[in-house]
Structure formats: structure tokens, C-alpha cells
């Protein structure tokens, strides 16, 4: 972790989005560095998830710009953004309920060309890679179980396995700790650290301050649709504006 590159991985410039009269993003200018575990925190309704949705192309921002590794990706289709190397999970974890865990992961395979599309979905190489991720996340024994029959925690791990199967350079996690037991929480934290050590950049939206403080290198605090503070955990912990936003002091 000594020599983090100073290249911005994901950056936004003046990102704006309003839903009717509600301003969710109010000129958010943020920069996440390559190779770091970044956290995005802030009170409910401060625009964190909207930020994710704008960045990943799920919704189109009203104004502003999103760049990823120097490329303008504002308003690009979500699948193009994934293919550029930016993967995400969802706040209320989303898996394909009537598919097996294995197929859930295989759905992230990126076929190339017509022959790639028509190749069997269960070819050896893909299967090995998919099983590898299931193993890594500790749910390989559920490979043939339909996702809807899995527990919440298992589904969260499965969703992450799928995202990792698409081999993203940067992973956006939307509340990975939501509804998760302490043991699993620990596990997710360790996993993030490991994957980061292997060269993946993270941006994590999270309310669980223990997780945020323990895994992140850099924290950005949102309030009312824009960043109000940023810095390493030690600094954020004592920042008065942050305390104000969170506690209303």
C-alpha cells in the first residue's frame, strides 16, 4: 500500500441530479484514487446511492461529468461502463432468484463475437473461474442451489461473486454491511482488503462506521448532494462538519 498511484480512478465534476423538486446531487465534485479503498459516507438522503447510479449509468445526471481512468463516461449505457472496468453491487442486494448460484456468476461472462455468444454457457474455463469465485467467497457448496433459496448473507456474497466474475478494476459496493451478521461483516472487510491488495480499487457506500474506519484509506463525506469533507479515517473521525451532518450538532 506504500506506492499508491496518484491517478484518479473515478472522478466526477459538478454532478447534478434532481428528482422533481428534490435535489439529490448538487454539483458533486469527487475524485477517487486508483488502488485505494475509498468510502462514501453521509446521512440518509445525502445522495450516495444517486451518486452510484449516475456514475454507473443507471440514471442519467442532469448535469456534470463522470470520468473513469481519464475517459468521459457520462451517460454511457451501464453495460459499457461495466466493460470499461467499473462494477457495482446494489443496496438491496440483487441476484437472479431463479438461477443457480453458478449461473448467477456465469451471467457475468463477457462473450466476444457471434461464436462467443453461441458457445455453451457451461464451458470448462468459465465454470472453473465461476467456481473459483464461489470458493473464494466461501459459498462453493451452494453452487447448484437457486439464489432464492439462499440466505440474505449468502445472497450478498453471491452478488459480489458475480460482480468479481466480470473482473472490474474498480468495485462500487452499496452498503455491503446492510443486514449482515458480525462474522460475515468481518469476512467482507477482510475480503475487501485482500482484493485491494490484488490491485482492485473500491468505493464503498456504508453506514457501518466500524467497517468504514477499518477498511478505507480515504473517506468522502456527503451531505445534501455534495461532498463536505474528505480525508483519511483518522481525520474524518474528528471532523466537526462530519459530526454535524451525522448528529445534527
Amino acid at each position, binding site marked *: 500500500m506504500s506506492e499508491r498511484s496518484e491517478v484518479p480512478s473515478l472522478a466526477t465534476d459538478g454532478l447534478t441530479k434532481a428528482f422533481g423538486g428534490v435535489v439529490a446531487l448538487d454539483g458533486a465534485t469527487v475524485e477517487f484514487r486508483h488502488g485505494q479503498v475509498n468510502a462514501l459516507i453521509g446521512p440518509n438522503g445525502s445522495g450516495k446511492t444517486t451518486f452510484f447510479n449516475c456514475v454507473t449509468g443507471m440514471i442519467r445526471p442532469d448535469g456534470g461529468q463522470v470520468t473513469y481512468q481519464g475517459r468521459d463516461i457520462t451517460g454511457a449505457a451501464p453495460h459499457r461502463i461495466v466493460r470499461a472496468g467499473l462494477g457495482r453491487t446494489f443496496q438491496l442486494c440483487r441476484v437472479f432468484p431463479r438461477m443457480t448460484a453458478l449461473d448467477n456468476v456465469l451471467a457475468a461472462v463477457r462473450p466476444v463475437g457471434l461464436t462467443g455468444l453461441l458457445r455453451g454457457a457451461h464451458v470448462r474455463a468459465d465454470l472453473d*473461474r465461476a467456481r*473459483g469465485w464461489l470458493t473464494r467467497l466461501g459459498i462453493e457448496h451452494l453452487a447448484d442451489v437457486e439464489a432464492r433459496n439462499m440466505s440474505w448473507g449468502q445472497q450478498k*456474497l453471491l452478488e459480489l461473486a458475480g460482480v468479481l466474475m466480470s473482473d472490474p478494476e474498480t468495485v462500487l459496493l452499496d452498503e455491503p454491511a446492510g443486514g449482515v451478521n*458480525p462474522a460475515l461483516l468481518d*469476512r467482507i472487510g477482510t475480503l475487501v482488503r485482500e482484493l485491494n491488495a490484488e490491485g482492485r480499487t473500491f468505493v464503498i457506500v456504508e453506514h457501518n462506521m466500524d467497517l468504514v474506519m477499518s477498511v478505507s484509506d480515504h473517506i468522502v463525506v456527503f451531505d445534501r448532494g455534495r461532498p463536505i469533507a474528505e480525508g483519511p479515517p483518522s481525520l474524518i473521525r474528528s471532523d466537526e462538519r462530519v459530526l454535524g451532518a451525522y448528529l445534527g450538532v
Partner: protein
Amino acid sequence: MPSASEPTTAPATTSPATAPPTGAGTTRRRTADRVVQVVAVVLLAAAVLAFPSLAPNPYILSAGVVVLNYAVLSTSWSFVGGFTGYISLGHGALAGLGGYGTALLVTKAGLPSFVALAVAALLVAALAVPIGFAALRVRGASFVIVSIALVLILLLVFQSWASLTGGSRGLVVPRPFPDLLRPEHHRVFYYLFAGLLALALLAWWMIDRSRFGLGLKAIREDEDKAEALGTPTFAYKLVVFVVSAAFTALGGGLYALWFGDLDPVFQFSILTGSYLVLMALLGGVRNLFGPLVGALVVGIGLEYFKVEFGDTQLHLVATGLLLALVVLFMPDGVLPAIGSLLGRMRPAQNSIREVTAAELRDQRVAAAGAPAAREPVDAVASTAGERAQSTEERA
């Protein structure tokens, strides 16, 4: 389990110790399933092929042609409705376009019948691109409405444009085999429809097992999630819609050549699309042979009800009743219901889950005292314990 420090971009292949529990039992059960499936398919194919020789009279044979036509159309429908879950009530219109296209290419352009059929199918496929481009932008109920609109618009066009289509007077299609007697004519077309059905089933099967098919099924499950995993959902939907339209048009065109007379009221009827949906749902949309089985049941039922109740609308009531019963008792369709029935009759599976080497090891590790794994949880927690321990070791 790959150790934490292992620098994997792609994770390591599963080692034998952690191989997933595809135990001998599972494999044997799968082989048995496969055998049952193959036998069922062979029997079905034999029954379909033998039918013309067994049919007691030309009427029954012609009913067989109608049923096979339905089977072709509902299988074609299932490329969209089955894979992506987009319920189209407008496929009757695509069949109608195929029929009129074939008929007009024969009568106005003087093409040989089967060349006209192929050209018409290509034209409908080309037309399906803009239609799909517009219709596939909306989901759920909105898509159903748009697909109905397609039928109604085309009905008006083909009724009003009488100089080309013959309007409500109908359009007579010259027979491709003028020398054949009526029973022979039915027999030939019966086999033509069977061949087309085989082709559609083959295409469906190829897509079903492919990566493309997995992407389509992901769209059915959760379209936004599929997109967020990198699937170009709109392109996938459009391609499969065009494939579906082409097969539907082939079915409609072949029907035109067989029946020899087209009327917009029947060609562009919402009822056709509804029957296709009913058949596919009844048989099971997630199954290769679902729409075919549904077509056999509904098609035979429709013919029977028409004979029983004559010109009344009672056959519609009976069909509606059939749909209600299926939705109530077999929501996934007949084939999955039969499958689970067979599953229940199988020699008892282990009620106690087999424990794999990996799980045993996890349990041992957990018992060895990672405090995190105290909770009475599933393997997730116990592997978390293992992870915690391996981290300690590294530190």
C-alpha cells in the same frame, strides 16, 4: 481455498478438496433424468411422425396440421416470452405478416411458393428491427399493450388497403402442389410443419444452452441487474425478437400456403397471440418442449371444443377455464409439474445433506476456536472463522 495472499486476478481453480458436492448420487440422478428425457423426446417425435398414417380421415389430419402450426408459433413466441419474459400478445400479427408476405410475393411478384416463404420471413425479420426497437423500450404491462397495438394497427391496414391485400374479401393463395389431392396435400404440409418445428426447437435449444441464452434469462430475472453485470440487454432483446419474428413469419407463411385463403380478421387477431401465450404458459415457458406440449393440449382442446360446441363462443369459455386451472395448480406449466411429480416418486434422496470434505474441514477449523464462528450459522460464518484465522497466521 486459495490463501489470502495469493495474487489472483482470476481466482484459482478449485482444488479437489474443495470441489463442489457433485457427489456420485447427484450424477446418477442426472443421468437418469437425461435418459427419461431422451426417451420422452423419442416417443414424442415418433408419435408426431406416425400421426398422418394413423389419422382416420382427412379432417383429423388437417386438425393435426393446425396443431403443429400452433406448436411452431408458440415455440417461436417462446424465444421472446420464454427467454426474456416479455409477454407479447402481438405475435399473431407477425404470423399474419408472414402469411400475407408469402401470398403477395406469390401472387404479385410471381415468386415460387417456397422462395416467397423464405423472402417473406426475411422481410418480416427486417421489419421486426424497427418494431422491436420501439416495443422493447417498455417493460411489463406496457410491452403487452404495445404488442396489442401492433395487431390492431396491422388489422386496420390490411383491411383498408384492399387494392393490395384484397381487404375483407380475403386473399386467395395459389397452392404450391396443385396436383395433390386434399389428403395428400395435408400430409405433405404436416411434414413441412414438423420440419419447421424441429428447426425452431433446435434453434431454441442452441440459444438455451449458450451464453447468449444465459444473458436472456438474466434479463428475465432482473433486467437492470443483467445490464449492471455487463450484458447489453437491449441488443440481446432485439436480436432474440428478430429471431422469434422470423420463425413466427415462417409459421404464418407456411400456413398461408397450406390453407390457401387469408382474411385480415383471422390473420391479425389478438386471439392468436393469446392462444400462443396460453400454450406456452400451459406447457412451461422455461422448457424446450413446453410450448409444443401446450400447443398439443390447447390445439387439440380448441378443435374438440369447436366440434362439441359448434359455432358458439363456448370454446373460448372452455379455453379460459383451462388457463385458469393451469395458473392455479401448475403455475410453472405442465412439464415442470410432471417433472416434480417424477421427482417425488424417485427413490428417497438423502434427507440428511451430504457433507463435503471442505465443509468438514471448515467445521474443524471453526471448532478449533475462531471466536467469530461461535454463532450457530451456516457455512458462511464458519468459513469466516477460517478466514480470520488465516489472516492471523499471516500477521
